[in-house]
């Protein structure tokens, strides 16, 4: 789960991580009064969307007067920002963060992430901040320092020193940097983050180390122990269909093809999308009904797929293990009765209770294109979407 920069900074301050003072604003008037309250003579007006690359897209602007704060707020609020992380459709800005300005001396990069290869929480730091870190990793990998943390030991001062000196932070600022890293590690662990990324981390002319930007991502499997973080969720930032699916424990991602997919298991769901593509079709979605779906969740899955008007055919591919084929079959029949499925429906069932599942479908009056195996299913779904069967 993602949160906004202003929320991330709010959380960081609870862990004694230095940030600039700032205020959130949802309207132009609020933006101006936020700047007044903050005081000073320079402010930064920042678009709050769940994506990086905002600066380049015109979502971050410096204001040197309250008049300029107003102008920038007017300009950015309501604007659709397209960045390398938003997809071509972009994201509409509905929230602003107004921050005080600062005298930047140097921009660094700091990130905490789980390294899957070692199974350890790992710090990454670089002297090259404020730029796309993927580029640094590709072109000058030696400029990124990595330090893994032993979970039994936790953060110790040497980790902080190794990072700070490795990033080229001047000796007199190392202490501040160590405190910053320790706070970031504590936050990562206490809040079940999957990513905590500060880019840039800056040193100021006054000698402070602070986070200019902040990106936090949380493990959705651990949200049950963090109701405070769950409350940061911004429905404006999430696809309505994907949220609706999540309520029913369905894993759904909307895509732009014409073949709706209903599959059990993430791997088979991806495999089904792959084989549709190999047969010349385009999947309309990724949908994993999981192992504990009921008749009702299957019905819900259908209603979500059918609400996508690009869907010209539906492919149901179920290999029952923990999921039983008869449950899926009952869900299909119920969905057809309630929703009236008006596109061709290709069904391939195999595995646990397959005979019972096929019997339920055969005894219904549904027009179903039965498929023998995976290839046959993909082939028929592609033809059906083109209106050729």
């Amino acid at each position, binding site marked *: 789960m993602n949160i906004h920069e202003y929320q991330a900074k709010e959380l960081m301050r609870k862990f004694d991580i230095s940030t600039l003072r700032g205020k959130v604003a949802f309207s132009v008037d609020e933006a101006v009064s936020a700047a007044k309250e903050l005081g000073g003579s320079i402010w930064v007006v920042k678009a709050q969307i769940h994506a990086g690359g905002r600066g380049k897209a015109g979502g971050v602007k410096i204001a040197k007067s309250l008049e300029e704060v107003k102008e920038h707020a007017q300009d950015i609020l309501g604007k659709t920002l397209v960045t390398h992380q938003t997809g071509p459709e972009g994201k509409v800005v509905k929230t602003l963060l107004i921050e005080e300005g600062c005298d930047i001396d140097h921009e660094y990069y700091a*990130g905490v992430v789980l390294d*899957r290869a070692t199974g*350890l929480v790992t710090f990454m730091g670089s002297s090259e901040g404020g730029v796309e870190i993927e580029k640094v990793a590709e072109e000058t990998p030696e400029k990124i320092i990595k330090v893994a943390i032993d979970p039994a030991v936790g953060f110790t001062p040497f980790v902080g020193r190794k990072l700070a000196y490795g990033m080229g932070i001047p000796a007199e600022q190392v202490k501040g940097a160590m405190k910053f890293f320790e706070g970031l590690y504590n936050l990562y662990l206490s809040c079940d983050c999957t990513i905590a990324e500060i880019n840039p981390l800056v040193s100021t002319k006054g000698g402070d180390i602070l986070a200019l930007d902040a990106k936090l991502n949380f*493990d959705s499997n651990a949200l049950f122990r963090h109701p405070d973080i769950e409350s940061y969720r911004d429905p404006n930032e999430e696809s309505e269909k994907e949220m609706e699916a999540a309520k029913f424990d369905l894993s759904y991602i909307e895509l732009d093809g014409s073949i709706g997919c209903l599959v059990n298991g993430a791997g088979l769901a991806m495999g089904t999308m792959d084989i549709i593509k190999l047969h010349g079709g385009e999947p309309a979605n990724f949908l994993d009904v999981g192992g504990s779906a009921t008749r009702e969740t299957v019905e819900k899955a259908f209603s979500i797929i059918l609400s996508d008007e690009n869907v010209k055919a539906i492919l149901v591919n179920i290999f029952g*293990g923990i999921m039983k084929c008869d449950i899926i079959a009952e869900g299909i029949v119920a969905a057809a009765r309630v929703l009236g499925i008006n596109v061709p429906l290709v069904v391939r069932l195999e595995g646990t209770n397959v005979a019972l599942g096929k019997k339920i479908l055969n005894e219904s009056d549904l027009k179903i294109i039965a498929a023998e195996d995976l290839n046959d299913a993909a082939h028929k779904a592609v033809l059906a979407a083109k209106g050729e069967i």
Partner: protein
Amino acid sequence: MAILVGRETRLITIGYTGKQGTFHSLQSRDYGTNFLGGVTPGKGGTVHEGYPVFNSTHEAVKKTDANAAMIFVPPKFAADSILECVDAGIELIVCITEGIPVLDMVKVRKAMVGSKSRLIGPNCPGIITPGECKIGIMPGHIHMPGRVGVISRSGTLTYEAVYQLTQREIGQSTCVGIGGDPVAGTNFIDVLQLFEQDPDTDAVIMIGEIGGTAEAEAARWIKENMSKPVVSFIAGASAPAGKRMGHAGAIISGGDTTAEAKYRILEECGVIIARSPADLGEKMEEALKQRS
């Protein structure tokens, strides 16, 4: 026995009296697994579906001499159950539970270093040696005893591969679902190593997914160490870029995480590639013909 499980396996289920725990314990028993009972704290001393229930894994091990455990405990408590199994000296722990917080697994993995236990999963279908022992949620009837090993990060794709093999009358030695979570107890190389050493295995199907570098590392290991043919499919070639969140994850794993990159490395390392999940059986049939 092929690898890890067979007729000598003595199984208990942690979270036995729950709905899923009960159903799959009995399914495993019906398949022929030597099932001995289960653990549900607070229900010790009772008998459930004809098998004894214990309050702790230690007690269960003491009374039944179990050497394997299957975990069906809810995600909040599953990491603790794994640690309890390790502490009780269980040799093979198969954790089916999906949705365990990843930082819980970071601790578990570290705590298991130096122990004599092996963990398979979490978030996996389990492990089966056809005709001998089934621990997990896979449909037993699609399997057939034989000499091809299967290893996969995905549950249902494993069934797909097994089904294609069985339809061609190619049996399986052991099928291992290592699970799809970022931090797992057993990785591809661990299992490949066991298959390479196993006299009952002639060839291996390896099913990977996008994300992480496990497949690339496995490919390099295969090139250096594996004498038996390996056929591989990577799920997610059609997954759109840009759905990935943040930069940090991608950097730490380098550029090897897309399906295309993984296929390239696998091919370079002499692994036989199936670009469609429907071709796994056919590719394996060809590989076995060439070998004989």
